């Protein structure tokens, strides 16, 4: 009886305490963000300054492109570094072409093609250290305009001005996460920005490219279309066609007479028999994820990255049979940590696996690839493998590895990101 009374007394006391004390407690949720105010420059002035007589630190490396002895390295939203890579063990940052809003690059011959927000620029780099603007083609990439809907922050595109910088002011407020309404509403406008451009003959880019040159055409993708741009006259690129290319397109990778287009929901294969108007030949759907792709004659290698804006898919590598491009089929899945860019040279497959580092696989048998080397300590995003030299763009900077002996891959050089 005494125990029973004790329990009753205890429970009653607790109930009263709970009732009275609960109202005294508060949960605190703070949101820290930065208010950013754009700094404008007249478009005339910006275009006049597009020349390679500057030097700038590598702060936010984006896409990479190799051509001849040079590496072209995109500084996200700011321009292109030109790096003399005559000696991969000692690359030298030579100059910088300031291009506000630049995220994609590709090179053919002596011409660099780069985006500047909505515009496409062609730049003469016959002397890479004395680049000259050839042509500006306006409104090729309308999705890159600021606040097309006018719903976010009220910034309305003014075609006579270019945003060249931002004034940042950090602030913290109390508040709850508000991430869903905007995210879903604007999902179709998502513009993915990390990585590099790809080319067939004249240069080589990475797997995260949104620009690619095949023969006389520059192909570029936005969220829903594949654009073919005739570049026989570099001083006068012409947008020829906008071809519906699926949804949430992210990357484009050329192989022989095919374009492999990676989207967040699948892989699209285009045939280039008519290069002015590529025809979609086959598709392969997968769970929503970030999805770069590389391919060879028989196989396509697709990495699916979960998280952030990518989607809920598993982190994995898919190997597809693309011998029949009309009907790509899944052959095998390999579990990964958080993969993004990838490259294949012969039987060696490189995968940038997020915090898992750079992974090097023996892909002699696509159905049984085996890990040969894992390079930790960097967070790689994309890789170009060319002539036993792997260029890796990572959060920490640009790295070059010698893989002439797959059993003894070693770091040749690095250009570290400035803090």
């Amino acid at each position, binding site marked *: 009886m005494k125990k029973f009374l*004790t*329990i009753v007394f*205890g*429970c009653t*006391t*607790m109930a009263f*305490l*709970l009732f009275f*004390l*609960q109202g005294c*407690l*508060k*949960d*605190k*949720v*703070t*949101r*820290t*963000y*930065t*208010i*950013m*105010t*754009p*700094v*404008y420059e007249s478009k005339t002035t910006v275009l006049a300054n597009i020349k390679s007589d500057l030097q700038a630190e590598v702060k*936010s490396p984006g896409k990479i492109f190799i051509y001849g002895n040079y590496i072209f390295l995109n500084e*996200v*939203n700011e321009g292109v570094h030109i790096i003399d890579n005559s000696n991969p063990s000692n690359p030298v940052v030579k100059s910088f072409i300031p291009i506000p*809003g630049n995220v994609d690059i590709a090179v053919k011959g002596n011409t660099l093609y780069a985006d500047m*927000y909505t515009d496409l620029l062609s730049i003469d780099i016959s002397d890479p250290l004395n680049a000259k603007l050839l042509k500006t083609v306006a409104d090729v990439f309308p999705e*890159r*305009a*600021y606040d097309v809907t006018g719903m*976010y*922050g*009220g*910034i309305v595109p003014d075609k006579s001005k270019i*945003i060249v910088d*931002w*004034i*940042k002011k*950090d602030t913290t407020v109390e508040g709850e*996460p508000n*991430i869903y309404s*905007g*995210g879903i509403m*604007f*999902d179709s*406008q*998502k*513009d*993915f*920005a990390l990585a590099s451009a790809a080319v067939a003959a004249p240069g080589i880019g990475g797997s995260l490219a949104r620009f690619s040159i095949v023969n006389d055409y520059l192909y570029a993708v936005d969220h829903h279309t594949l654009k073919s741009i005739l570049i026989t006259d570099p001083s006068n690129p012409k947008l020829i066609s906008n071809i519906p290319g699926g949804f949430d397109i992210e990357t484009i990778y050329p192989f022989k007479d095919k374009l492999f287009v990676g989207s967040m929901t699948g892989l699209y294969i285009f045939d280039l028999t008519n290069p002015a108007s590529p025809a979609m030949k086959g598709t392969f759907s997968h769970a929503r994820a970030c999805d770069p792709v590389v391919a060879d004659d028989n196989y396509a290698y697709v990495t699916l990255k979960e*998280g*952030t*804006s990518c989607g809920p898919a598993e982190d994995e590598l898919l190997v597809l049979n693309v011998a029949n491009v009309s009907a790509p089929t899944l052959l095998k899945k390999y579990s990964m940590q958080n993969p993004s860019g990838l490259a294949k040279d012969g039987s060696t497959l490189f995968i940038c696996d997020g*915090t898992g580092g750079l992974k090097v696989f023996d892909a002699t048998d696509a159905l049984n690839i085996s890990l040969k080397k894992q390079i930790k300590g960097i*967070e790689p995003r994309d890789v170009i493998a060319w002539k036993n030299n792997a260029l890796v763009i990572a*959060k920490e900077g640009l790295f070059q590895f010698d893989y002439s002996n797959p059993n003894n891959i070693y770091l040749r050089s690095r250009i570290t990101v400035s803090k």
Partner: protein
Amino acid sequence: MTIPIQTTFTSEAGSLYQNRIAMKPKIYLVLVLILTIASGFAQSKAKIKFSNITQFGTLSGKSSTEYQMQTVNGVKYKTISAGVGVGLDNYYEQTIPLFLDIRKNFYGRSSTPFVYGDAGYSFLPKDSKLMWEIDHKGGTYYAAGIGYEFPLDKKVKAVFDIGYSYKHFSRKIDSEPWRSSIPHNYDRYNYSLNRISIKAGLSF
């Protein structure tokens, strides 16, 4: 004219990898503390008992009332006991607290009031990511309160307690995943949650 928009936070703030590294010293610290205390008990001549306390209960705060469960394993010496606890905390977001638990009985008899204090780290499960989230990490966990225990038989005791409980965690979220034209935008949310904890269970 310049029109401010709400956007970016931090450029390359901590990754999950870094968070895991940051958590490890805290776990080691808790283990070292409990081993130190256990070692101190072991050196004494008094009788040391191993103990287990398993409890279920509620966490009530401004946001809601949710369930919790905990189990503490440790040692007991006279009226003092210490152990390492792990649990499930479902308040606001489900977290897993790992903590050092120390409690002191008021009396040496079998039925006695007691006070307790917990301190440790609250882990946020990896699969609790929100849409557009870059990463998340757990944070400080602590609790303190009073309780009462009484025997049900020779080995088993019933334990009730009430107290204050705090946990913290944070999330880094891509606030504009559809944009690349401006430097990428992140919001950092910090959650500091204060609750009343009520638990009941058994002690062996």
